[in-house]
């Protein structure tokens, strides 16, 4: 179905912006490394919505946004997996996944 008639593009933009900054807040606020990762996933999803929306509304004759979103998803998956591996390593070393406690690279 074609959404151009009923839901203007702006709604999508607002949605993706809100989602992105909520994800940002999640990254900045949360103390747990895993919940920070969840915030990052939210941000990536917001970006995906953006790409797909622009593709659907403005450039229906091409599929670039679609594929870009696909690639982003693949990268996000790889990155999440690596992040989890790192978190597990940190847990083994520091016995904690609190981000305040892994601050050895400081002054």
């Amino acid at each position, binding site marked *: 179905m074609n959404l151009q008639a009923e839901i203007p593009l702006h709604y999508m933009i607002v949605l993706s912006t809100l989602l992105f900054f909520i994800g*940002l807040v999640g*990254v*900045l606020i949360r103390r747990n490394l895993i919940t*920070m990762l969840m915030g990052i996933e939210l941000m990536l999803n917001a970006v995906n919505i953006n790409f797909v929306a622009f593709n659907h509304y403005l450039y229906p004759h091409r599929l670039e946004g679609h594929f870009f979103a696909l690639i982003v998803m693949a990268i996000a998956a790889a990155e999440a997996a690596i992040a989890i591996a790192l978190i597990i390593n940190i847990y083994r070393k520091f016995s904690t996944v609190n*981000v*305040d406690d*892994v*601050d*050895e*690279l*400081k*002054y």
Partner: protein
Amino acid sequence: MDYSYTLLILLLPLLGFALLGLFHDRLKPMMSGTLGTLNLVVITLLSYYTAFLYFSQGSGESGYTAVKAFNVLWLSFSESLQIHLGILLDPLSVMMLVVITTVSLMVHIYSLGYMKGEKGFQRYYAFLSLFTFSMLGLVVATNIFQMYIFWELVGASSYLLIGFYYERPSAVAASKKAFIVTRFADLGFLLGILLLSFYTNTFDFTTLTSVDGVAISTPPTALFLGMSVTTWAMLLIFMGGAGKSAMFPLHIWLPDAMEGPTPVSALIHAATMVVAGVYLVARLFPVYVLSSPDSLEVIAYVGSFTSLFAAIIACTQLDIKRVLAFSTLSQIGYMMVALGVSGYGGEEGLGYMAALFHLFTHAFFKALLFLGAGSVIHAVHSNLMTDMGGLRKYMPITHITFLIACLTIAGIPPLSGFFSKDEILVAAFEHNKIIFAVQWMVAGITAFYMFRLYFNIFWNRTPVFHHTPHESPTFMTVPLILLAIASVLAGFVPFHDLVTSDGKAFHTVFHWMIAIPSVLIALVGIGIATWFYKKQNSIPDQVVQGAKRIYDIVFHKFYIDEIYLFITHKVIFNFISQPVAWFDRHIVDGTMNLIGDTTVYGSNLIKKMQSGQIQWYIWFFTSGVLLLAFLLLYLN
């Protein structure tokens, strides 16, 4: 006439200083001594030759003309402010060349014997060469700034020489005192130089002292506190001269300067450095006498007071070198008096001629006195009169030469001191009877304390000596003999033909009315001294007991040193130095510390940015990006 060889007279001692100083540990002591002395022989011969050439060309109608052997531009700040270096030859400087080189040569030869075996022998000769160079440069200066440069050099050399025995705290203190007092006086000197040259637009002596020049014919009329700027300038310049010549109240360094080796005292504090002040006034004499006669009055009174003051103190001192130091003060006072009462030109300029004549003769007999005292000290190993007595049996040459010197300074004819002192008394009599009376009394006191010194060393009682004193070695006695001959003959030099206020010769008349009373009072002084001191008796002690309070004050040199210490410690330290030190420590240093501390504090604040907390970093760059976006989009 080509006088360009006179540059050697300056360069040779400088070269001597450089060589002896740089190689002082490679040269054997006698080697450096011989080198230094030979250097001086060459320089002395050159000076005599210069004097011969200069004076033999005759004075002619307009008197001896000043010859500038060199005058090179050294520093040029602007059109009107230029400093030259050069050699000026006129009767005054040529005479000074002769005096300085002769006395320096005698001291060099004498030191070969006196300083034998001393540690630092080579250093001593290097410093002597440096001093000779500085003094020679001072007297041949073409302009007042060059004179100031060499003036300071002389001060530095005398500091080095007075503090020669640097391991003795008293010597170190004395050299510091000498340097600081003369430096303080040089403050006035520099102010005077700047003032004078600002108003007359020149530093050059020939321009300043020429009768048609701007300093004299159209003196600046600006007034400051009632006195003209010329008077201010000349008084300030005299302040510098008073410091070097140890006029009251800047005399305090001279007695202490006796801590240096005795030949140094002979060279510096008898014959050359202390007469630098007299030389300065004489050099600028036309400006003094024609543009600011008031300053001459001041000079005359200061000189007169100093000579009386010093003569009184000399009567009570027990250290023979101190007696001679105060005697020097007194005699320089005479020279200043003579300059102060002088007029300009011909007969009027008698005082000028008399002052320089006395400078000439005084150099010889005072050097003789000091070297003789050194000979005595060398034999007895003590400076005090109480350790001496009856030495005439052991040291005949020293005895005879010392006696000749004492008779000369007392003013007994036909020795040289009589002629020069007599001319001063004549000049004083014609201008200021009070000063004449004072100087006449001082002549008597001089005779008294000199013979007190003589009798206490060579007659009186014979104390028990550690080892029997013997006559000094030849190196030491030869200069004594030579200087004694000079003291006898120097009186016959026709100064009135050679060195006069305006360069022209004039005729002097022998004033019996003045000569006879001066000889009489000298004989009275000698008589009293003989009565008191020739044989051991109790009369001196009775006199001292009778006037105990006064005697104590005089013995302590009128407590002038204590007054100075009081002023510096209580007044200057507390009111000036303390605040300045506080300012320096808290404000100047504090500012530096503040800058440093602020930097450290700031960095302490900033280092928290590298906290290792990931969320900080993320926050920083996201807010940075947003801020940047905001700035670029909306505030462009």
